[in-house]
């Protein structure tokens, strides 16, 4: 048995009112990939923040031993010095700096405070080769995709000579292909001797790469599964996480009555807002029937978000042309406000930066798109507002201390429910959902799917964008496949399969080349 590189003993971390970690013991062996899984808010990230010094020594109970030495990290700098690197879910890169500059940010190759650019570039190129990043070292980070940005983060961690790398949801924002690349890279680095701790909600990824899986629930460790010894299946892990067997990951679909076409787009063309010459959405046409859930599958950057945002009152793009028909009538929507008034809603991809006002409470967030519904002569009726918010909170099972809780303090799943409540409150007929379950746990996902099904059964037209194919296949009635700004395929739920969708995408690219 190989030696233990990390030993966390009896870690307890208490926030006022909540015990986030309760006497947690975690041992990580040298050279393994150790996965931490658990539902949102169960303490995975807290544990890693304790380890990396974000919660400094003294703010928690228990001991940490790394490579046999007792650690008392006061800051992230201390843990980095000791050889522990952490990559957070939200990337910490400066978009206006080049790849090389980002890799050595705060760790500059310098002498007497003067940066040695030759050395910086040389070493950057070496690290980029190591992580398989095929870009020029002086490309700005804002010009590369999220997948490549993730690689920059890893290169940055490697530049610090880490021996234990922690990745918090590294693939949450990646499409399947980029995720795949990243996982292969981790396996490769692991072969070279790097120990990894990976936090992930994507259980199929975890089972693929991890040597051991530790399941956390409610701040305590439930069990650690070992590859080759324990059963290593998705069902087994989900059972550990939720404490019950989750037979179906998707709620059963009642035979909903799918009506006539409620929403239709014809020959939709959108140009890039920053570049008049670049057509982002290329003559897209699609339709949604009443009560139907239509999925738009595609790789990241296929233009799915851009498509729905441009439809949502031209929130994206320039030189927009094409026709929108709702219930057979032509709609011209010049602003988001007009779109909302016309009964269209768009739940954004990124709930933190574009979906919610995190410093405001649940109530204020829910009523924001339709304040006119809770006000008379522009004066807000707070009693009515609270009543409505409370109703939504109960209906969608938003777990909080009340409607006055700040949305910034909610877990990801509950934040997403607030986003949904907000748009349900706007009473739309057409609802665009952009990555509605990104980065949230299995249980909350299930609840959200249930809500989506309910909305459809009320006769709303639902368009769902998702990068997780199982999800699209699990809940959509019909699927469009998008690639490089065009719709390249359409299939019903019955005919669709992951292979078929990927084939659609690959064929369209091949045809062009």
């Amino acid at each position, binding site marked *: 048995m190989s030696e233990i590189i990390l030993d966390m003993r009896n870690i307890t971390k208490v926030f006022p009112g909540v015990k986030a970690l309760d006497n947690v013991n975690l041992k990580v062996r040298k050279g393994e990939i150790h996965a931490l899984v658990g539902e949102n808010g169960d303490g995975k990230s807290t544990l890693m923040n304790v380890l990396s010094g974000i919660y400094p020594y003294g703010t928690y109970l228990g001991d940490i031993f790394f490579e046999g030495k007792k650690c008392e990290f006061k800051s992230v700098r201390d843990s980095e010095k000791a050889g522990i690197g952490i990559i957070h879910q939200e990337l910490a890169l400066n978009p206006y700096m080049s790849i090389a500059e980002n890799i050595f940010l705060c760790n500059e190759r310098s002498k007497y405070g003067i940066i040695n650019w030759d050395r910086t570039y040389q070493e950057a190129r070496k690290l980029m080769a190591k992580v398989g990043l095929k870009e020029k070292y002086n490309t700005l980070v804002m010009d590369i995709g999220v997948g490549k940005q993730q690689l920059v983060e890893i290169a940055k961690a490697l530049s610090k000579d880490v021996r234990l790398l922690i990745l918090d949801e590294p693939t949450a924002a990646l499409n399947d292909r980029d995720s795949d690349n990243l996982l292969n890279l981790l396996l490769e680095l692991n072969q070279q001797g790097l120990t990894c701790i990976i936090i992930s909600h994507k259980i199929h990824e975890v089972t693929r790469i991890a040597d051991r899986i530790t399941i956390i629930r409610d701040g305590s460790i439930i069990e650690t599964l070992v590859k080759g010894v324990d059963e290593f299946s998705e069902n087994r892990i989900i059972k550990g996480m939720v404490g019950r067997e989750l037979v179906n990951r998707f709620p059963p679909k009642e035979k909903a009555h799918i009506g006539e076409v409620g929403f239709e787009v014809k020959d939709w063309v959108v140009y890039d807002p920053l570049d008049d010459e670049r057509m982002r959405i290329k003559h897209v046409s699609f339709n949604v029937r009443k009560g139907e859930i239509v999925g738009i599958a595609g790789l990241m950057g296929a233009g799915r978000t851009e498509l729905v945002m441009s439809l949502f009152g031209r929130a994206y793009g320039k030189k927009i042309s094409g026709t929108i028909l709702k219930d057979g009538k032509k709609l011209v929507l010049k*602003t988001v406000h007009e779109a909302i008034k016309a009964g269209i809603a768009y739940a954004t991809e990124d709930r933190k930066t574009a979906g919610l006002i995190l410093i405001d409470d649940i109530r204020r967030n829910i009523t924001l798109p339709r304040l006119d519904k809770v006000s008379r002569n522009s004066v807000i009726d707070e*009693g009515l507002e609270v009543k409505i918010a409370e109703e939504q909170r109960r209906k969608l099972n938003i777990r909080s201390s009340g409607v006055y809780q700040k949305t910034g303090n909610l877990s990801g799943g509950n934040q997403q429910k607030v986003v949904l409540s907000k748009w349900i409150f706007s009473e739309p007929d057409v609802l665009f959902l952009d990555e509605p379950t990104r980065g949230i746990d299995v249980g909350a996902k299930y609840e959200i799917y249930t809500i989506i099904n309910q909305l459809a059964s009320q006769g709303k037209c639902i368009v769902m964008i998702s990068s997780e194919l199982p999800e699209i296949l699990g809940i959509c009635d019909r699927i469009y496949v998008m690639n490089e700004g065009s719709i390249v395929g359409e299939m019903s739920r019955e005919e669709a399969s992951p292979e078929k969708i990927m084939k659609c995408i690959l064929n369209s690219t091949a045809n062009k080349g």
Partner: protein
Amino acid sequence: MESIRDVFRHNIRQYGMLIALIAIMLIFQILTGGILLRPINVSRLIFQNSYILILAIGMMLCILTGGNIDLSVGSIVAMVSASSALFSVKLGLPVPLSILLSLIIGFLAGVWQGFWIAYVKIPPFIVTLAGMLIFNGINNIILSGKTVLLPQLYVTIASDSIPDFIGSGSKLHITTIVIGIICSVLYIIMELLSRAKKKKSGYDTGSDSFFAAKIIAIALVINLFTYWLARANGLTYAVILLVVLIAVYTFITNKTVAGRHIYALGGNAKAAELSGISVKRVMFWVYANMGFLAAIAGIVFAGRLNSASPTAGDGFELDAIAACFIGGASATGGVGTIIGAIIGGFIMGIMNNGMSIMGVSTFWQNIIKGLVTIFAVAFDVYSKSKAKAA
């Protein structure tokens, strides 16, 4: 049920500034040997600061939209007092008409800036920096660099008391006291009604004892304040104007859709935009409104000096901005209240007044005011980080 201690702990930011105001008041009361809180000095203190407080109300709205400030308000104050002189003295128009025209000019100055900020998307800092130069130049052209005396009615607005209808001849200004009693009774009735309504729609209203303590305290403060003014010259027109503005803008920020839009924009501009809020419209009106309030401040200030002068309004923008930040506004927007800005303005005003009474040189006054601004915001940042940890 929350104990009073809990209420204070949860609202440390809200009450922190109020406690600071009281502390500073007591300190200067002692340092000035009791002069600070003499009725005549309280009256003077409000008189001296009314225009800064009016500016702070508008500035708070600008800051709420995302930490944006308006550097031009001092110049608009000057331009408006100059245009008052132009209309009422040079052109000989009646005073009410010239006041109206001057208010329109201030509003148009705000519209001009709002246009560049909202529709051309030039950062407010730059637009209002340019505005500061432009309006100051216009002021000097109108006055040709000279000071012009204004008609008496301006002075009345800025510093005269309302006539004492009831107790004329008595030492106390009885009308003022009566108004104070009426206001506090109205206040208590409104609070009770709104609380009953809240209870009916079934949401948490906090403890009864705290509620009672709060409304009694506020009613007492209102009456103490009017009694104090009654001992001096009574309620002035400027105080009435100020109270009305505070009430109107507190209502707008707390209870109206427009107010909600302003807070939402400052809290998260992108989310606000995708919720259907027109960022352009909000920015435009906030800056147009700032111009209008600056014009009101300009009229009051002109009345106080009884003249229009080329150097009027110098540095007012900075006092107004400092008042907002001392009063708890967040530098990134979305957090702050009108009452906070007023409290911040009074903290600045009391320091000015107190140090002047003590004979501290203006140089030292500036240093002390600067330090207080830093400490106030540092305290705010500290308490915010504590609240976050909790």
